């Protein structure tokens, strides 16, 4: 009998607020050490936490998006541990009464199969500071800027059975929090962190002991780390050993996981309700107010693109890949009324140029309005598709709108039949040998003539007209 893999994920999503969860310090990224750490973050006696109003609707949004129960009375608890990255000696978190309660479900797709993954809960908590181990000989440097940053910890059921499923779920959640606008999803800066609990067992027997893989900052590495951990556990068990409950670190350079420290038993954290914070009561009105602000979710968007815009599943998935991308595309379509042509431009030239320049669609030098302006000029025959690419490149380098560029560079398509006729006559007169050959039966010569006329017009002649006039003249 083969081993069955069991994976559950804990995802820490940093909420997009301006200030910390319990104090008015800024949480902007990259500040000088400890310039954003106030007396509360330092754990000074006499300081009292006051909850940031902005975190509540953000947590409710996630709850509504995954169909979970919202905790009507949620309570903050102290999770006790001593480590210099949280000088209070505890992390303020939620234990028994989380803000997002049971019932959440997320649908993933792996290799054509859809599967439902349960979400156990999601709770609000504060982040810890950063310890710097290598800068001071024999000492550890502590930067508490990050301490107190608001996090939503999203805990899944142990429903995943492979590294691929785990990554599909993590990606789905990553997409979701960004669509909801509650987290910027930046994995490099640690705004979205994934911890994986991995164990193996024989089907029909109790779950095995799990190891936790922590703080891996790319989906690719998450998949590799889980694969390695599964292999390691199989080796340990098949050689008669036992898996130890522990935290393991993934080393991308060596492509291995290694033990970090033995995880303290859950009850060692000695959770108890934080006496400094009163329960948070969420009313029906609070929930309805959030519901009214919910954006369209990616799955619904995908279905709508296929149904209303007649796009393929592939196109719909690409265009809804991020909320910024979907908003861009919808803004283009709103102006052009041509979904397929707009989709081709967004997925083609635009995405290619963004990738080349390492830009996000939100920072595109060509705005949705500008791209729509370009597409409109193709549709009304002002320019050809080929010239349009030239205009697009000019827009990229900041030369103005499509109309301005077409005007300034004289790129307007030639649709005047007599002008095209003159070009055709010139080409035929200068290539008598080819004309003879064509008339002698070499029909593929036709393409040569088209090419010559287009070249003579610097790409600006209307190709359909060139074809027609050539056909007439070569009869």
């Amino acid at each position, binding site marked *: 009998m083969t081993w069955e893999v069991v994976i559950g994920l804990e995802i820490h999503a940093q909420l997009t607020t*301006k*200030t910390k969860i319990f104090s008015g310090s800024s949480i902007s990224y990259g500040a000088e*050490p*400890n*310039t954003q*750490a106030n*007396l509360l973050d330092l754990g000074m006696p006499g300081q009292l936490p006051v909850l940031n109003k902005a975190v509540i609707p953000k947590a409710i949004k996630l709850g509504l998006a995954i169909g979970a129960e919202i905790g009507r009375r949620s309570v903050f608890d102290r999770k006790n541990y001593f*480590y210099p990255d949280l000088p209070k000696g505890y992390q303020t978190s939620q234990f028994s009464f989380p803000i997002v309660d049971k019932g959440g479900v997320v649908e993933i797709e792996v290799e054509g199969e859809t599967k439902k993954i349960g979400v156990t809960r999601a709770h609000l908590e504060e982040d810890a500071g950063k310890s710097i*181990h290598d800068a001071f000989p024999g000492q550890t440097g502590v930067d508490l800027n990050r301490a107190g940053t608001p996090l939503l910890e999203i805990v899944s059921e142990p429903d995943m059975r492979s590294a691929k499923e785990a990554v599909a779920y993590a990606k789905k959640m990553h997409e979701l929090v960004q669509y909801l606008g509650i987290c910027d999803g930046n994995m490099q800066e640690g705004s979205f962190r994934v911890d994986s609990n991995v164990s193996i067992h024989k089907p029909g027997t109790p779950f095995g002991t799990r190891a936790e893989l922590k703080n891996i900052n790319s989906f690719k590495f998450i998949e590799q780390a889980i694969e390695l951990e599964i292999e390691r556990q199989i080796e340990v068990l098949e050689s008669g050993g036992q898996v130890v409950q522990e935290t393991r670190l993934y080393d991308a350079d060596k492509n291995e996981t290694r033990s970090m420290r033995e995880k303290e038993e859950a009850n060692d954290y000695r959770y108890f309700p934080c006496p400094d*914070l009163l329960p948070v009561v969420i009313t029906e009105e609070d929930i309805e107010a959030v519901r009214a602000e919910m954006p369209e979710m990616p799955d619904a968007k995908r279905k709508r693109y296929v149904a209303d815009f007649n796009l393929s599943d592939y196109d719909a998935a690409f265009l809804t890949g991020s909320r910024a991308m979907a908003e861009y595309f919808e803004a283009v379509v709103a102006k052009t009324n041509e979904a397929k042509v707009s989709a081709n431009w967004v997925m083609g030239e635009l995405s290619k140029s963004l990738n080349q320049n390492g830009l996000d669609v939100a920072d595109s030098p060509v705005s949705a309005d500008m791209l729509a302006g370009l597409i409109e000029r193709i549709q009304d025959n002002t320019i050809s598709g080929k010239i349009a690419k030239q205009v697009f490149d000019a827009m990229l380098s900041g030369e103005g709108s499509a109309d301005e560029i077409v005007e300034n560079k004289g790129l307007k398509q030639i649709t005047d039949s007599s002008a095209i006729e003159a070009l055709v006559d010139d080409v035929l007169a200068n290539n008598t040998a080819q004309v003879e050959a064509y008339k002698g039966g070499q029909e593929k010569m036709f393409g040569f003539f088209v090419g010559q006329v287009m070249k003579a017009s610097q790409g600006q002649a209307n190709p359909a007209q060139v074809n027609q006039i050539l056909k007439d003249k070569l009869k």
Partner: protein
Amino acid sequence: MSLEKSEVDTISRLAAISVDATEVDQLTAKISNVLDLFQRMEAVDTTNVEPMSHPLDQVQRLREDVVTETDHHKQYQKLAPAAEKGMYLVPQVID
């Protein structure tokens, strides 16, 4: 319910409180007494009692998401046993 001395060691380690070897016997007895009290309370039927974590019938007051704190790390670091390059320095916590 009586505790083992080893359990008292574990608790003191988790709480980061150093306990003198001479105090261990006395502490073990004291904590065991507290646990006995809890055990007696467990006999009470609490089926219809709502758990009470907060004695006040009030809810949490909230704060606007506005930066109100300014940088005073230089003053704060004067109080610290050691600070360098803006960091608080502590004994090495990892090998």
